[in-house]
């Protein structure tokens, strides 16, 4: 429900938004432009590149900034997404995940937001409308924390979530105001303290700037822990952390999945558990920074790991799989197999994930990434 994404931004006192429509993000833009802001503005522009440009300008000026896009729109925005990260601006960008064309395809595929993985930007992947609403609020807080100061992308499955109507607990404004005070960007433009942003920087200074960003990324788990505590205090529920896990304590086989696929995988885990099989699930919610130690902890005792990737990096394989393998470097006792599924919006039903579990259980050793479809 994209309106929920727009609503979450509004209750966060989002002050400025540059927006340009693209399916399946358009409803976010529609709800933003229809909202009577008392303090703030929605600037409709001619492209995604300019949409992020507006957000950069607004954010440097000290306003909370928000935008949303998808697929080829995200690619067109990319230059300014990198700029937002390197300017250290806590802009929140919602991605309604959609397949990059050609061929033209409007359905879900995480390849668009994952193409931005090397931008200096946090990335969250949401499994439900409630998760999306809560995570947008969390993302603003983490991104705006002085120890972080980086943009954050919050991804949802295009159509599967973006165009579905479901019941959701939308927090009221007073709660949000309590959780999310007005932005105080330390390096914002001030009339009494003029600065130049983005001018020529010598090589060593540039390397240090990148190193600073890495430090900021490393601060994220600690910052997020505090933000989630506070969220729980204010709203009475606790959104998931980086790698919410289920049934992994004694699991032999664990599925790693993100977004709504993880919900379906949970049904498979429950069914297998009911038959006495020791199967577990780790949902990859926080992709950037990728907290390798937390993942290894979440995987528990697993000796077999199935990574479900709704994305494809040609010549490498699944992008999540590469991260999981890197996290388990040196662990020859764990068999990690990549399953590329659901590309271009192909449905990933219970039966597919069930078949994946069977496939992994029967393997003697890991193979190259597998393009897995229903019926094998």
């Amino acid at each position, binding site marked *: 429900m994209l309106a929920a994404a727009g609503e979450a931004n509004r209750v966060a006192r989002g002050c400025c938004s540059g927006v340009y429509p693209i399916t399946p993000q358009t409803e976010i833009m529609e709800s933003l432009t229809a909202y009577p802001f008392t303090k703030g503005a929605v600037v409709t522009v001619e492209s995604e590149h300019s949409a992020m440009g507006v957000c950069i300008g607004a954010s440097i000026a000290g306003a909370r900034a928000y935008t949303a896009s998808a697929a080829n729109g995200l690619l067109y925005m990319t230059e300014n997404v990198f700029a937002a990260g390197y300017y250290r601006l806590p802009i929140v960008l919602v991605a309604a995940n959609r397949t990059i064309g050609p061929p033209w395809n409007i*359905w879900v595929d995480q390849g668009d937001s994952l193409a931005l993985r090397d931008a200096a930007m946090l990335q969250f992947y949401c499994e439900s409308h409630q998760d999306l609403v809560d995570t947008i609020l969390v993302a603003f807080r983490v991104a705006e924390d002085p120890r972080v100061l980086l943009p954050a992308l919050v991804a949802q*499955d295009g159509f*599967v*979530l973006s*165009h*579905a*109507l*479901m019941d959701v607990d939308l927090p009221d404004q007073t709660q949000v105001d309590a959780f999310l005070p007005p932005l105080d960007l330390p390096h914002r433009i001030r009339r009494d303290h003029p600065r130049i942003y983005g001018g020529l920087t010598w090589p060593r200074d540039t390397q240090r700037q990148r190193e600073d960003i890495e430090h900021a990324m490393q601060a994220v788990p600690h910052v997020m822990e505090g933000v989630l505590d506070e969220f729980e205090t204010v709203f009475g529920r606790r959104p998931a952390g980086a790698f919410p896990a289920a049934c992994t304590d004694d699991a032999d086989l664990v599925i790693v999945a993100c977004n709504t696929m993880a919900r379906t995988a*949970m049904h498979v885990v429950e069914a297998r558990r009911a038959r006495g099989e020791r199967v577990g699930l780790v949902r990859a919610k926080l992709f950037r920074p990728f907290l390798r130690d937390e993942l290894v902890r979440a995987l528990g005792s697993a000796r077999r790991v199935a990574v479900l990737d709704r994305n494809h990096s040609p010549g490498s394989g699944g992008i999540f799989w590469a991260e999981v393998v890197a996290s388990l470097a040196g662990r020859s006792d764990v068999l990690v197999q990549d399953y590329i599924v659901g590309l271009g919006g192909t449905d990933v039903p219970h039966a597919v994930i069930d078949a994946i579990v069977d496939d992994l259980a029967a393997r003697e050793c890991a193979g190259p990434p597998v393009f897995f479809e229903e019926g094998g």
Partner: protein
Amino acid sequence: MIEFVIHGRGGRGGVTLAKLIAGAYYRRGLHVQAFGIYGAERTGAPVQAYVRVDEREIDVYGAIATPDHVIIVDPSLVSPAVAAGERSGGWIVINTGQPPETFAGVFPGRRVATVDANAIAVAHGLGTQAVPIVNTALLGAMARVLGMEIAAAEGALGDAGFGGANVAAARAAFAEVVTTEEPGEIAQPVLAEQHASMSFLDERVGARPSTHTGAWASRLPHSRELRPLCNDSCPAGNDVRGFVQAAAAGDDGRALAILLETSPFPGTCGRVCPAPCMDACNRRELDGAVDVRDIERALAECAAWPRPQRPSGGAPVAVVGAGPAGLSGAYHLARLGHPVTVIEAAPELGGLLRGGIPEYRLPRVVLEREIEFILDHGVEVRTGQPVDRAGLRRVAREYSAVLVATGQQSLRALDVPGAMAGVVEQGLEFLAHTHAAAEDLSGAAVVIVGGGNTAVDAARTAVRLGARDVRVVYRRTRAEMPAIAEEVDEALAEGVVIEELLSPAGLCVRDGRTSLVCRRMVLGEPDESGRPCPTGVDGDEALVEVSCDRLLLAVGQDGDLSLFPPPVAPVAPFRGPMSVGGASAAVYVCGDLAGGEGTVSAAIGSGRHAALAIHAALAGAEGDREAGSLAAERPRPAGPIAERPEDAPLAGPETVHLRAFPRIPPEPVSLAAPRLRRRDFAEVRRGFAQRSGHDPLTAEASRCFSCGACTGCDLCVI
């Protein structure tokens, strides 16, 4: 969990129906999920929408394969596949006026309900007759079959912001839905065509069937051409846009063929036509009208003339008078298969084309070639044979039909005292004999009375014959002169003086010198010709003397009606048919005698219309069709032109986006220098200026906007 699938078509509200059903359950405190499967996002594409309802939080996503309930928004989507899986007790709700029993055999084991939601929607003004919006009616039907109160549907509608007619439609459907619980084998409804799954790269398909959408469901592009202003304004009926576009495409042969379908005189009209098409041209406002006249001239000169066709089978027709109207009539009659005999009083054919238009405007060689082309269609000629009233009776007995095109042979005299032979001469007669044997006017003062082309032609001819002083006396001003403006410009450049606002009052001879006495005029209110009416200024001081050695009259001429027996006095516009002296042949009249506007192109058009009328009368209804195909219709251009009525709206300037076109000035034309052209009768206008490596004909034709031509871009339907 209860699951619903809605089978609809894009843009018809199926997803909204899903959300409304979810809303009705949400009001009961249940968790809900509603979503659509979006595809080509165009009106008419088959789309599905889904609803899940559960007592616990819903954490499954994706399509529903085995629904409990199925709603079919468009009955053309009925097929067993929509109700896959075993879900006994589920409902199939179909939007149709047919009874539910009709579909029972398609859905064994299911309960079927039908409701004519289309009719309900139309009755409540929801959508249109062609595209009714049926979702709110179907919500009412669903509430009924699901055992809800109508209030549940009304509440869901209210939550979504629907009221009024939508609520009334839901109530109507709630009341009208028909159900059966006893399915049986009855009639098989027509099943929707099942498409095999195809790759988007399938060459046979080009695109997936799901992308054949908007047009396919309810609309087809309905393109039609607009009538270009140039075609509309051409008195000869030429397809101006057609031949100019063919020339622009470099197909000069086709361009000339298009011209020859309506006129056998492209070389002539390409020189002497006042070209109303150029006055009408939409390009005039941007950077000057397309030079249609010189394009036509160049085509007549450069393109290959087709071999004349000589169809047969018609009835013999006589044409009396071999001016442009008579020759045009003869040409078209011959092309329609009629043996034609042209009877001309003069020793040569051509009428005013030969006698009335000076050689420096229309070289004889051009005229000869076009007359020869007409005769090559099998036209017989009898020259030197004047036809009087008795002669017309004889001809009418001899032929099946007669076309009279004798023009206007009665030259108006000047009703002034003192007019004397030797000094006063008719301009047309002067023009005619100066062609035959040049006369020496060296040192003479020549005055021409009139303002039309004959006056200007006579003046310029006098210049060429050595006249010292040539003056055109006209009772209005230059702006009102009927002569072609360019001709007036060229006359002025050659030294002709135009004496405006003078009307002849008499001749006087003083000291052996003759003078034309004129009265000064003022312009008043417009008369019936639309031009300001000149009235004389009173008093002797308003009299002006213009000395002259020769006085040429060009004040107009009238048709000689003595051919026709009284009381048959042809009055304009007159075409016939009429009967003469009891002869069986119908007599038709065309050209200036029939009240034409006095231009060559009007005469050509008049002759063609008369030929078609004669052909239709001789050949009956069949001839009508043939004549139609010869006259106006060419094969339709390929593409999505759904209709091309002759009464299509005009492609006026508002239909052209001038800013889309770069400014390209017209191709220069070559003109003989005024000093040189005073000396002889060599042609003044020489057509497009030639330079090496440049094709002026194609270049000028390419300036044509092709106003009103449908390119099938379909932008108009988007």
